[in-house]
Protein backbone atom coordinates (compact mmCIF):
# COMPACT_ATOMS: atom_id res chain seq x y z
CA UNK A 1 0.00 0.00 0.00
CA UNK A 2 2.89 2.34 0.82
CA UNK A 3 4.26 1.74 -2.66
CA UNK A 4 0.91 2.51 -4.22
CA UNK A 5 0.59 5.80 -2.38
CA UNK A 6 4.15 6.74 -3.32
CA UNK A 7 3.38 6.04 -6.94
CA UNK A 8 0.28 8.14 -6.66
CA UNK A 9 2.29 11.06 -5.34
CA UNK A 10 4.78 10.72 -8.16
CA UNK A 11 2.06 10.61 -10.75
CA UNK A 12 -0.34 12.74 -8.81
CA UNK A 13 -0.49 15.95 -10.82
CA UNK A 14 -0.46 14.01 -14.02
CA UNK A 15 -3.36 11.85 -13.02
CA UNK A 16 -5.30 14.75 -11.60
CA UNK A 17 -4.63 16.71 -14.76
CA UNK A 18 -5.87 13.84 -16.80
CA UNK A 19 -9.09 13.88 -14.89
CA UNK A 20 -9.55 17.58 -15.43
CA UNK A 21 -8.90 17.27 -19.11
CA UNK A 22 -11.10 14.44 -20.07
CA UNK A 23 -12.43 12.58 -17.09
CA UNK A 24 -15.68 12.96 -15.37
CA UNK A 25 -14.51 11.68 -12.01
CA UNK A 26 -17.16 10.23 -9.79
CA UNK A 27 -19.91 11.92 -7.89
CA UNK A 28 -18.22 10.96 -4.63
CA UNK A 29 -14.64 11.96 -5.43
CA UNK A 30 -12.98 15.07 -6.83
CA UNK A 31 -10.36 14.60 -9.58
CA UNK A 32 -7.53 15.31 -7.14
CA UNK A 33 -8.85 13.05 -4.39
CA UNK A 34 -5.74 11.19 -3.11
CA UNK A 35 -7.69 7.95 -2.85
CA UNK A 36 -8.80 8.22 -6.47
CA UNK A 37 -5.26 9.06 -7.62
CA UNK A 38 -3.93 6.06 -5.73
CA UNK A 39 -6.48 3.84 -7.46
CA UNK A 40 -5.46 5.17 -10.86
CA UNK A 41 -1.77 4.68 -10.08
CA UNK A 42 -2.42 0.97 -9.52
CA UNK A 43 -2.96 0.65 -13.27
CA UNK A 44 0.75 1.26 -13.84
CA UNK A 45 3.07 -1.73 -14.16
CA UNK A 46 3.24 -5.07 -15.90
CA UNK A 47 0.19 -7.20 -16.58
CA UNK A 48 -0.37 -10.61 -18.14
CA UNK A 49 -3.63 -12.07 -19.41
CA UNK A 50 -5.13 -14.88 -17.36
CA UNK A 51 -7.35 -17.90 -17.93
CA UNK A 52 -9.41 -17.77 -14.80
CA UNK A 53 -11.83 -20.58 -15.51
CA UNK A 54 -9.79 -23.15 -17.39
CA UNK A 55 -10.36 -23.07 -21.13
CA UNK A 56 -8.19 -26.03 -22.06
CA UNK A 57 -5.98 -24.20 -24.53
CA UNK A 58 -5.25 -20.71 -25.77
CA UNK A 59 -7.67 -20.83 -28.68
CA UNK A 60 -10.52 -21.95 -26.45
CA UNK A 61 -9.95 -18.93 -24.22
CA UNK A 62 -10.96 -16.74 -27.14
CA UNK A 63 -13.65 -19.14 -28.33
CA UNK A 64 -15.54 -18.52 -25.07
CA UNK A 65 -16.19 -14.91 -26.09
CA UNK A 66 -19.50 -13.81 -27.56
CA UNK A 67 -19.17 -14.04 -31.35
CA UNK A 68 -19.18 -10.83 -33.33
CA UNK A 69 -22.21 -10.18 -35.54
CA UNK A 70 -20.75 -9.21 -38.88
CA UNK A 71 -22.26 -7.63 -41.94
CA UNK A 72 -22.32 -10.05 -44.93
CA UNK A 73 -19.40 -8.38 -46.70
CA UNK A 74 -17.29 -8.53 -43.54
CA UNK A 75 -18.16 -12.20 -43.05
CA UNK A 76 -16.99 -12.92 -46.58
CA UNK A 77 -13.75 -10.99 -46.09
CA UNK A 78 -12.99 -12.78 -42.81
CA UNK A 79 -13.65 -16.16 -44.41
CA UNK A 80 -11.40 -15.25 -47.33
CA UNK A 81 -8.58 -14.25 -44.98
CA UNK A 82 -8.89 -17.50 -43.01
CA UNK A 83 -8.81 -19.52 -46.20
CA UNK A 84 -5.77 -17.66 -47.46
CA UNK A 85 -3.97 -18.16 -44.15
CA UNK A 86 -4.83 -21.85 -44.18
CA UNK A 87 -3.46 -22.16 -47.70
CA UNK A 88 -0.25 -20.40 -46.73
CA UNK A 89 0.22 -22.62 -43.68
CA UNK A 90 -0.59 -25.73 -45.70
CA UNK A 91 1.81 -24.79 -48.46
CA UNK A 92 4.67 -24.07 -46.09
CA UNK A 93 4.31 -27.07 -43.78
CA UNK A 94 6.86 -29.65 -44.86
CA UNK A 95 8.71 -32.42 -43.08
CA UNK A 96 12.18 -33.06 -44.40
CA UNK A 97 14.28 -35.67 -42.68
CA UNK A 98 12.37 -35.26 -39.44
CA UNK A 99 12.67 -31.47 -39.48
CA UNK A 100 9.30 -29.75 -39.66
CA UNK A 101 9.42 -26.55 -41.69
CA UNK A 102 6.60 -24.10 -41.06
CA UNK A 103 5.58 -20.62 -42.12
CA UNK A 104 8.03 -18.22 -40.46
CA UNK A 105 6.51 -15.11 -38.96
CA UNK A 106 6.99 -12.60 -36.16
CA UNK A 107 4.37 -11.12 -33.83
CA UNK A 108 2.13 -8.55 -35.48
CA UNK A 109 2.47 -5.08 -33.99
CA UNK A 110 -0.75 -3.44 -32.92
CA UNK A 111 -3.30 -3.24 -30.16
CA UNK A 112 -5.32 -6.30 -31.12
CA UNK A 113 -2.40 -8.70 -30.95
CA UNK A 114 -0.78 -6.99 -27.99
CA UNK A 115 -3.86 -7.18 -25.79
CA UNK A 116 -4.78 -10.80 -26.54
CA UNK A 117 -1.20 -12.07 -26.43
CA UNK A 118 0.15 -13.97 -23.43
CA UNK A 119 3.33 -11.95 -23.06
CA UNK A 120 3.30 -9.03 -20.64
CA UNK A 121 2.16 -5.48 -21.29
CA UNK A 122 3.72 -2.64 -19.34
CA UNK A 123 1.38 0.28 -18.61
CA UNK A 124 3.35 3.48 -18.08
CA UNK A 125 1.45 6.44 -16.64
CA UNK A 126 2.80 9.88 -17.54
CA UNK A 127 1.55 13.43 -17.42
CA UNK A 128 -0.06 13.88 -20.80
CA UNK A 129 0.17 10.40 -22.21
CA UNK A 130 -0.05 6.78 -21.19
CA UNK A 131 2.00 4.06 -22.87
CA UNK A 132 1.03 0.43 -23.22
CA UNK A 133 4.21 -1.42 -24.10
CA UNK A 134 4.28 -5.09 -25.10
CA UNK A 135 7.33 -7.35 -25.08
CA UNK A 136 7.35 -7.47 -28.88
CA UNK A 137 7.78 -4.46 -31.19
CA UNK A 138 5.15 -1.74 -31.23
CA UNK A 139 3.43 0.18 -28.46
CA UNK A 140 0.24 2.13 -27.93
CA UNK A 141 0.54 5.81 -27.06
CA UNK A 142 -2.61 7.18 -25.43
CA UNK A 143 -2.83 10.97 -25.46
CA UNK A 144 -4.47 12.28 -22.30
CA UNK A 145 -4.20 16.02 -23.02
CA UNK A 146 -7.64 16.39 -24.50
CA UNK A 147 -6.63 16.43 -28.15
CA UNK A 148 -8.98 14.92 -30.71
CA UNK A 149 -8.14 12.21 -33.23
CA UNK A 150 -6.51 13.55 -36.40
CA UNK A 151 -8.45 13.53 -39.61
CA UNK A 152 -8.23 10.03 -41.03
CA UNK A 153 -8.04 11.63 -44.46
CA UNK A 154 -4.46 12.66 -43.64
CA UNK A 155 -3.53 9.74 -41.37
CA UNK A 156 -1.59 6.71 -42.48
CA UNK A 157 -3.04 3.66 -40.71
CA UNK A 158 -0.62 1.81 -38.39
CA UNK A 159 -0.88 -1.15 -36.03
CA UNK A 160 -1.62 0.91 -32.93
CA UNK A 161 -3.66 3.56 -34.76
CA UNK A 162 -4.20 6.83 -32.87
CA UNK A 163 -5.42 6.71 -29.28
CA UNK A 164 -6.86 9.35 -26.96
CA UNK A 165 -8.02 8.73 -23.44
CA UNK A 166 -9.64 10.11 -20.33
CA UNK A 167 -10.48 9.00 -16.83
CA UNK A 168 -13.97 8.14 -15.65
CA UNK A 169 -13.34 7.89 -11.95
CA UNK A 170 -10.64 5.23 -11.64
CA UNK A 171 -11.46 3.72 -15.04
CA UNK A 172 -9.26 4.61 -18.00
CA UNK A 173 -11.29 4.97 -21.21
CA UNK A 174 -9.41 4.94 -24.51
CA UNK A 175 -10.64 5.57 -28.03
CA UNK A 176 -8.57 4.38 -30.99
CA UNK A 177 -8.99 4.77 -34.74
CA UNK A 178 -6.65 4.52 -37.71
CA UNK A 179 -5.52 0.91 -37.22
CA UNK A 180 -4.25 -1.15 -40.12
CA UNK A 181 -7.19 -3.35 -41.02
CA UNK A 182 -5.13 -6.27 -42.26
CA UNK A 183 -3.74 -6.84 -38.78
CA UNK A 184 -4.74 -9.55 -36.34
CA UNK A 185 -8.32 -10.79 -36.26
CA UNK A 186 -10.48 -9.39 -33.49
CA UNK A 187 -11.27 -11.87 -30.68
CA UNK A 188 -14.79 -13.21 -31.12
CA UNK A 189 -14.37 -13.26 -34.89
CA UNK A 190 -14.15 -9.71 -36.13
CA UNK A 191 -12.18 -7.52 -38.46
CA UNK A 192 -11.59 -3.78 -38.63
CA UNK A 193 -10.56 -0.97 -40.92
CA UNK A 194 -8.88 2.38 -40.28
CA UNK A 195 -12.35 3.87 -39.80
CA UNK A 196 -13.34 1.39 -37.09
CA UNK A 197 -13.36 2.78 -33.56
CA UNK A 198 -12.10 0.66 -30.68
CA UNK A 199 -12.99 1.78 -27.17
CA UNK A 200 -11.07 0.14 -24.32
CA UNK A 201 -12.16 0.49 -20.70
CA UNK A 202 -9.41 -0.38 -18.21
CA UNK A 203 -11.15 -1.18 -14.94
CA UNK A 204 -9.23 -2.37 -11.89
CA UNK A 205 -10.94 -5.09 -9.89
CA UNK A 206 -8.30 -4.71 -7.20
CA UNK A 207 -4.58 -3.97 -7.00
CA UNK A 208 -3.65 -7.11 -8.93
CA UNK A 209 -6.66 -7.76 -11.19
CA UNK A 210 -7.61 -5.80 -14.29
CA UNK A 211 -10.55 -6.07 -16.65
CA UNK A 212 -10.26 -4.49 -20.07
CA UNK A 213 -13.51 -4.30 -22.00
CA UNK A 214 -13.09 -3.84 -25.74
CA UNK A 215 -15.91 -2.45 -27.89
CA UNK A 216 -15.60 -2.30 -31.66
CA UNK A 217 -17.94 0.02 -33.53
CA UNK A 218 -18.21 0.24 -37.29
CA UNK A 219 -21.61 -0.06 -39.01
CA UNK A 220 -19.92 -1.14 -42.24
CA UNK A 221 -18.47 -4.19 -40.49
CA UNK A 222 -20.55 -4.92 -37.38
CA UNK A 223 -24.32 -5.36 -37.15
CA UNK A 224 -24.00 -3.97 -33.63
CA UNK A 225 -20.98 -2.97 -31.52
CA UNK A 226 -18.90 -6.01 -30.64
CA UNK A 227 -17.77 -6.19 -27.00
CA UNK A 228 -15.76 -8.61 -24.91
CA UNK A 229 -13.71 -8.46 -21.74
CA UNK A 230 -10.25 -9.88 -21.07
CA UNK A 231 -8.70 -10.28 -17.62
CA UNK A 232 -5.11 -9.51 -16.66
CA UNK A 233 -3.04 -10.23 -13.55
CA UNK A 234 -0.47 -7.82 -12.10
CA UNK A 235 3.08 -9.10 -12.21
CA UNK A 236 5.37 -8.97 -9.18
CA UNK A 237 6.96 -5.58 -8.55
CA UNK A 238 10.43 -6.93 -9.28
CA UNK A 239 9.51 -8.42 -12.66
CA UNK A 240 10.98 -6.90 -15.78
CA UNK A 241 10.20 -6.75 -19.48
CA UNK A 242 11.71 -9.56 -21.51
CA UNK A 243 11.94 -8.97 -25.24
CA UNK A 244 10.14 -11.43 -27.47
CA UNK A 245 13.02 -11.53 -29.88
CA UNK A 246 12.07 -12.40 -33.43
CA UNK A 247 14.00 -12.35 -36.69
CA UNK A 248 12.06 -13.76 -39.59
CA UNK A 249 15.31 -14.41 -41.46
CA UNK A 250 16.52 -16.72 -38.67
CA UNK A 251 16.21 -20.32 -39.95
CA UNK A 252 14.85 -21.37 -36.54
CA UNK A 253 11.90 -19.05 -37.10
CA UNK A 254 10.56 -21.35 -39.77
CA UNK A 255 11.28 -24.56 -37.92
CA UNK A 256 9.09 -26.50 -35.54
CA UNK A 257 9.66 -30.04 -34.30
CA UNK A 258 12.93 -31.78 -35.07
CA UNK A 259 12.16 -35.45 -34.61
CA UNK A 260 15.13 -36.95 -32.76
CA UNK A 261 16.88 -39.88 -34.40
CA UNK A 262 15.61 -43.00 -32.61
CA UNK A 263 18.37 -45.03 -31.01
CA UNK A 264 17.99 -48.76 -31.37
Amino acid at each position, binding site marked *: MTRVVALAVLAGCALAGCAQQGGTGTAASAPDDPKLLAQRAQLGGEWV*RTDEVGSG*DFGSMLARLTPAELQPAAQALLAERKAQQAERD*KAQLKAEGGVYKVAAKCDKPGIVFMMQH*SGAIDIVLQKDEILVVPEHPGAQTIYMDGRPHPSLEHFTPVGAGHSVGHWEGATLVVSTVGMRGEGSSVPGGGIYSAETELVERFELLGPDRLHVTFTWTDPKIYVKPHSYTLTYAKQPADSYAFESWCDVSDPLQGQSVVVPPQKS
Partner: protein
Amino acid sequence: MQKPLAALTLAATFVAPLALAHHSFAAFDMKQEITLQGTVQSYSLQNPHAHMVIKVAGKGPGDRNAGLWDVEGAAANIMRRQGWTSQSFKAGDQITVVGHPMHSGDKGLSLFYAIKADGTRMYQDIARPVGYLK
Protein backbone atom coordinates in the same frame (compact mmCIF):
# COMPACT_ATOMS: atom_id res chain seq x y z
CA MET B 1 4.16 -39.57 -43.50
CA GLN B 2 3.43 -36.83 -46.02
CA LYS B 3 -0.01 -38.04 -47.03
CA PRO B 4 -1.83 -37.80 -43.69
CA LEU B 5 -0.19 -34.46 -43.06
CA ALA B 6 -1.59 -33.02 -46.25
CA ALA B 7 -5.05 -34.32 -45.47
CA LEU B 8 -5.22 -32.96 -41.97
CA THR B 9 -3.46 -29.65 -42.21
CA LEU B 10 -6.39 -27.69 -43.58
CA ALA B 11 -8.67 -28.59 -40.71
CA ALA B 12 -5.99 -27.92 -38.15
CA THR B 13 -5.31 -24.44 -39.34
CA PHE B 14 -8.86 -23.46 -38.53
CA VAL B 15 -8.34 -24.26 -34.91
CA ALA B 16 -8.08 -21.00 -32.99
CA PRO B 17 -4.67 -19.29 -33.04
CA LEU B 18 -3.02 -21.35 -30.38
CA ALA B 19 -0.83 -19.27 -28.16
CA LEU B 20 -0.53 -16.77 -31.02
CA ALA B 21 2.63 -18.58 -31.87
CA HIS B 22 5.45 -17.31 -33.98
CA HIS B 23 4.73 -20.03 -36.46
CA SER B 24 1.88 -22.24 -37.51
CA PHE B 25 0.98 -25.19 -35.29
CA ALA B 26 -0.78 -26.95 -38.13
CA ALA B 27 1.42 -30.02 -37.67
CA PHE B 28 -0.14 -30.76 -34.28
CA ASP B 29 -3.51 -32.28 -33.43
CA MET B 30 -4.57 -29.67 -30.90
CA LYS B 31 -7.77 -31.56 -30.10
CA GLN B 32 -5.79 -34.44 -28.62
CA GLU B 33 -3.82 -34.53 -25.39
CA ILE B 34 -1.34 -37.21 -24.48
CA THR B 35 0.84 -37.75 -21.41
CA LEU B 36 4.44 -38.92 -21.60
CA GLN B 37 6.78 -39.80 -18.76
CA GLY B 38 10.48 -39.77 -19.38
CA THR B 39 13.91 -38.38 -18.76
CA VAL B 40 15.15 -35.05 -20.02
CA GLN B 41 17.96 -35.35 -22.57
CA SER B 42 18.22 -31.66 -23.41
CA TYR B 43 16.31 -28.46 -22.69
CA SER B 44 16.55 -25.01 -24.22
CA LEU B 45 14.42 -21.98 -23.32
CA GLN B 46 14.85 -20.29 -26.69
CA ASN B 47 13.09 -18.28 -29.36
CA PRO B 48 11.01 -18.67 -31.36
CA HIS B 49 9.94 -21.62 -29.21
CA ALA B 50 11.45 -23.58 -26.35
CA HIS B 51 12.39 -27.19 -27.00
CA MET B 52 13.27 -30.20 -24.94
CA VAL B 53 14.15 -33.73 -25.94
CA ILE B 54 12.89 -36.42 -23.59
CA LYS B 55 13.48 -40.15 -23.56
CA VAL B 56 10.35 -42.20 -22.95
CA ALA B 57 10.96 -45.75 -21.75
CA GLY B 58 7.44 -46.84 -22.51
CA LYS B 59 5.29 -49.36 -20.74
CA GLY B 60 6.76 -52.44 -22.32
CA PRO B 61 7.43 -54.05 -25.68
CA GLY B 62 5.32 -52.60 -28.44
CA ASP B 63 4.65 -49.28 -26.72
CA ARG B 64 4.70 -46.86 -29.65
CA ASN B 65 5.48 -43.94 -27.36
CA ALA B 66 8.83 -45.40 -26.37
CA GLY B 67 11.75 -43.45 -27.80
CA LEU B 68 13.03 -39.90 -28.08
CA TRP B 69 10.56 -37.04 -28.37
CA ASP B 70 11.02 -33.37 -29.27
CA VAL B 71 8.68 -31.28 -27.11
CA GLU B 72 7.97 -27.76 -28.33
CA GLY B 73 6.97 -25.03 -25.90
CA ALA B 74 6.08 -21.36 -26.25
CA ALA B 75 8.30 -18.33 -26.79
CA ALA B 76 10.83 -17.66 -24.05
CA ASN B 77 9.13 -14.52 -22.72
CA ILE B 78 5.78 -16.28 -22.41
CA MET B 79 7.24 -19.25 -20.57
CA ARG B 80 9.20 -16.99 -18.23
CA ARG B 81 5.90 -15.45 -17.11
CA GLN B 82 4.75 -18.94 -16.19
CA GLY B 83 7.81 -19.54 -14.03
CA TRP B 84 10.21 -21.17 -16.47
CA THR B 85 13.92 -20.27 -16.44
CA SER B 86 16.88 -21.54 -18.40
CA GLN B 87 17.59 -23.79 -15.41
CA SER B 88 14.13 -25.31 -15.02
CA PHE B 89 15.32 -28.67 -16.34
CA LYS B 90 18.63 -30.35 -16.96
CA ALA B 91 19.66 -33.60 -18.57
CA GLY B 92 18.73 -36.54 -16.42
CA ASP B 93 15.70 -34.95 -14.74
CA GLN B 94 12.55 -37.00 -14.53
CA ILE B 95 9.63 -35.30 -16.25
CA THR B 96 6.01 -35.80 -17.22
CA VAL B 97 4.69 -33.80 -20.16
CA VAL B 98 1.11 -33.28 -21.30
CA GLY B 99 0.63 -31.98 -24.80
CA HIS B 100 -0.69 -32.30 -28.30
CA PRO B 101 0.76 -34.97 -30.62
CA MET B 102 1.58 -34.60 -34.28
CA HIS B 103 -0.90 -35.54 -36.97
CA SER B 104 1.82 -37.53 -38.67
CA GLY B 105 2.47 -39.79 -35.71
CA ASP B 106 6.05 -38.59 -35.48
CA LYS B 107 7.56 -38.17 -32.03
CA GLY B 108 6.92 -34.48 -31.62
CA LEU B 109 4.67 -32.80 -29.05
CA SER B 110 3.26 -29.32 -28.56
CA LEU B 111 3.56 -28.80 -24.82
CA PHE B 112 0.59 -27.90 -22.62
CA TYR B 113 2.29 -28.41 -19.28
CA ALA B 114 5.14 -30.28 -17.64
CA ILE B 115 5.30 -31.88 -14.20
CA LYS B 116 8.61 -31.96 -12.38
CA ALA B 117 9.75 -34.86 -10.26
CA ASP B 118 8.59 -33.03 -7.11
CA GLY B 119 5.08 -32.67 -8.55
CA THR B 120 5.35 -29.01 -9.54
CA ARG B 121 3.22 -28.31 -12.58
CA MET B 122 4.62 -25.82 -15.09
CA TYR B 123 2.36 -24.42 -17.79
CA GLN B 124 3.87 -23.30 -21.06
CA ASP B 125 1.32 -20.51 -21.54
CA ILE B 126 -1.58 -18.75 -19.83
CA ALA B 127 -4.19 -21.41 -20.75
CA ARG B 128 -5.28 -23.75 -17.97
CA PRO B 129 -6.99 -27.16 -18.12
CA VAL B 130 -10.75 -27.32 -18.51
CA GLY B 131 -12.41 -26.88 -15.16
CA TYR B 132 -9.37 -25.25 -13.64
CA LEU B 133 -10.24 -22.79 -10.89
CA LYS B 134 -7.55 -20.68 -9.43
